[in-house]
């Protein structure tokens, strides 16, 4: 019987999560030993794409749909934030979440008629909406200034402090990444998350068990587009100039390549994919000029050789089991539609717990 004191349990938690804490510390303190604005900038872009990849992962990875027009919501978030701050004078602290909400509203409006479609029909409609978004952004000059784009987007101001250098933006995106990661994690490990996995694995079976699939698809779509909107808002206030060109379906395809490379259906895949595809073209000079071809080849190669991505479906965990903990804290496995849960005392896999 476990008679661990609070202290011991606290220490146990720290030891179990020591690797996570270390990683967190490294990235939290990054701006202290990386001073070069150029490198910080790269990390910031990695952060943006991590948020985007994680959000798309909710739709493509966890729910098993194929959305190929995600950049539209990224764009909606960006334009919303730009217009809210420029035209309506809202403070950034308000514009950021509002942009997420506006993107989510559009996610709802677009999801309503299309999420009841299946397969290729759904996919094509997501593409169609991406294209239409860009066309509207170009043509609705009264609202978006068309191809001129929106320039001079204000610098974020949080509680009177106006952003000055790369470090400020870095911490903001760091926070957004943590937020996305944390809330996604909670979502996935809830009953809601399990319903999603049921939809992914065997939709008709899920229906019979009483899961209203369209309802869940709508919910995840709206949640996912919220994150994309947040990322868009950040982008708008970071590079302070946005144009329709930034949000075409080629940008959506870039996200697809990230998920294809890193893997989807878990939390580390999108992070790995986003980091790799942003960092590699900066590290290797010959890739810098041929970024898009590189992404295309990645898509082809991954589909041929490892279509689940590098980090495939199983969830990963960096938790360590301290010696005095007896509870099994292994990863969760997906076996058909059975869910192995650390909380439930159901079947244990053949003894092995790490991956």
């Amino acid at each position, binding site marked *: 019987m476990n008679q661990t004191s609070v202290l011991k349990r606290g220490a146990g938690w720290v030891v179990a999560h020591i690797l996570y804490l270390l990683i967190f510390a490294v990235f939290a303190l990054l701006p202290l030993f990386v001073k*070069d*604005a*150029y490198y910080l*900038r790269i990390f910031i872009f990695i952060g943006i794409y991590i948020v985007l990849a994680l959000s798309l992962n909710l739709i493509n990875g966890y729910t098993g749909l194929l959305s190929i027009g995600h950049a539209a919501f990224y764009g909606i978030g960006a334009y919303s934030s730009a217009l809210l701050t420029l035209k309506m004078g809202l403070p950034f602290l308000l514009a950021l979440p509002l942009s997420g909400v506006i993107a989510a509203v559009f996610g709802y409006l677009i999801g309503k008629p299309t999420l009841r479609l299946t397969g290729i029909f759904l996919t094509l409609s997501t593409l169609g909406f991406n294209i239409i978004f860009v066309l509207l952004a*170009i*043509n609705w*000059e009264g609202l978006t200034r*068309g*191809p*001129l*784009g929106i*320039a001079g987007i204000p610098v974020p101001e949080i509680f009177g402090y106006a952003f000055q250098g790369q470090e400020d933006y870095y911490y903001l995106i760091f926070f957004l990444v943590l937020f996305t990661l944390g809330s996604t994690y909670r979502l996935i490990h809830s009953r809601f998350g399990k319903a999603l996995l049921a939809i992914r694995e065997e939709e008709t079976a899920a229906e019979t068990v009483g899961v209203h699939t369209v309802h869940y698809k709508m919910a995840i779509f709206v949640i996912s587009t919220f994150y994309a909107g947040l990322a868009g808002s950040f982008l708008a206030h970071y*590079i*302070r*100039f946005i*144009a329709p*060109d*930034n949000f075409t379906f080629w940008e959506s395809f870039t996200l697809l390549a990230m998920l294809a490379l890193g893997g989807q259906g878990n939390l580390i895949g999108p992070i790995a994919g986003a980091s790799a595809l942003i960092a590699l073209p900066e590290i290797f000079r010959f890739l*810098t*000029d*041929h970024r898009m071809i590189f992404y295309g080849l990645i898509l082809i190669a991954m589909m041929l050789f490892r279509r689940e991505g590098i980090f495939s479906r199983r969830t990963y965990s960096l938790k360590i089991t301290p010696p005095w903990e007896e509870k099994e804290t292994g990863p969760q496995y997906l076996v058909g539609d059975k869910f192995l849960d650390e909380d439930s005392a159901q079947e244990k896999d053949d003894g092995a717990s790490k991956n």
Partner: protein
Amino acid sequence: MKRFKSVFLRTLLFLVIPFSFAYGAEPIYIGLMAPMTGDYAEYGMFFREGIQLAMDEINKAGGIKGQQVELVVGDSRADPKEAALVAQKFVANPKIVAVIGDFTSSCAMAAAPIYESAKMVEFSPSSSHPEFTKLGKFMFRNTPTQEHEGPFLARWLIKDLGKKKVATIYIKNDWGLATNKYFVETAKSLGVDIPVQESFLPGEKDYTAILTKIRRDNPEGLFIGAMYAETALITTQMKKMHFNPTMIAPGAIYSPKLIELAGDAVEGILANALFFPEFDRPEVRKFHKGFVEKFKKEPNNFAALAYDCMNILAHSIKTGGPDRQKIRETIAAVKNFPAVTGATTFVGGDVVKEYGKITVKNGKWSAYKP
């Protein structure tokens, strides 16, 4: 005699080289921020060639006070995000003292805040969006803004040539919108309303529908706000439709490729030009000759503008030294610099230059003679 000469030269070289090291042969680095890949890569290439030509001439003459100049190229791909990244790289490199670029206004403007806060000159050969130079004290451009180009063309077509019925067709991007706007505004001030203004998206290649619409109005003159590729298509399709108004377009169309693509469909088209080989001034001749010799092809407006940028920068560095802040001050003070693209004086970050007039006559670009 020959042998003596070569021995003499080689000995001289032997003696000179260690001294040139002593001169701090550390070269002066200038950055080029332009689209080297992507849709506008050919313009980035012309920039690069113009700058390279200028640098070669400067270096052959001994460099700037003994220091050679060298070019560092950053590819902005005509993407503002990329431009900002390139700007970041450049300002972080203490060896780079100034930057020439970008080609598009949106890139130049996206990068401007970075150069401004790093106090480094961003000298664009071609950015014509009025707001660019307002973004900071370190922003300079070598071309008049569209506030001057559009009106110049409007006055030419309406005042000089007396066309009373005019229509416009223009590309729907930041450049096209601006160039059309200023043309139309001036036309209005000259008493000519332009009811038919048709825009098209980049990538459009079928203009027959638009042209049919325009032709219904039967205009005498047509302002084409597009680059040479689209203009070639537009004019060819106009010819197919037997639609022959007087055509006038911004100098961006000045390229041998326009004639190559459109043939006699562009016969008679009018354009403004800052650079044209027939404008007979010594610096123009020198540039033209040097360019053709080095690159085996005709230069265009953009190559000339970049060439001038480099020379103006060299002049500044010579006057005030290779210091970022100093360069800014000396450029701002430039008056009547004998540039290939016209005598150049800076007013703030903008230039005052006179346009010339060119046209396509008998299948070739020529200076316009009324």
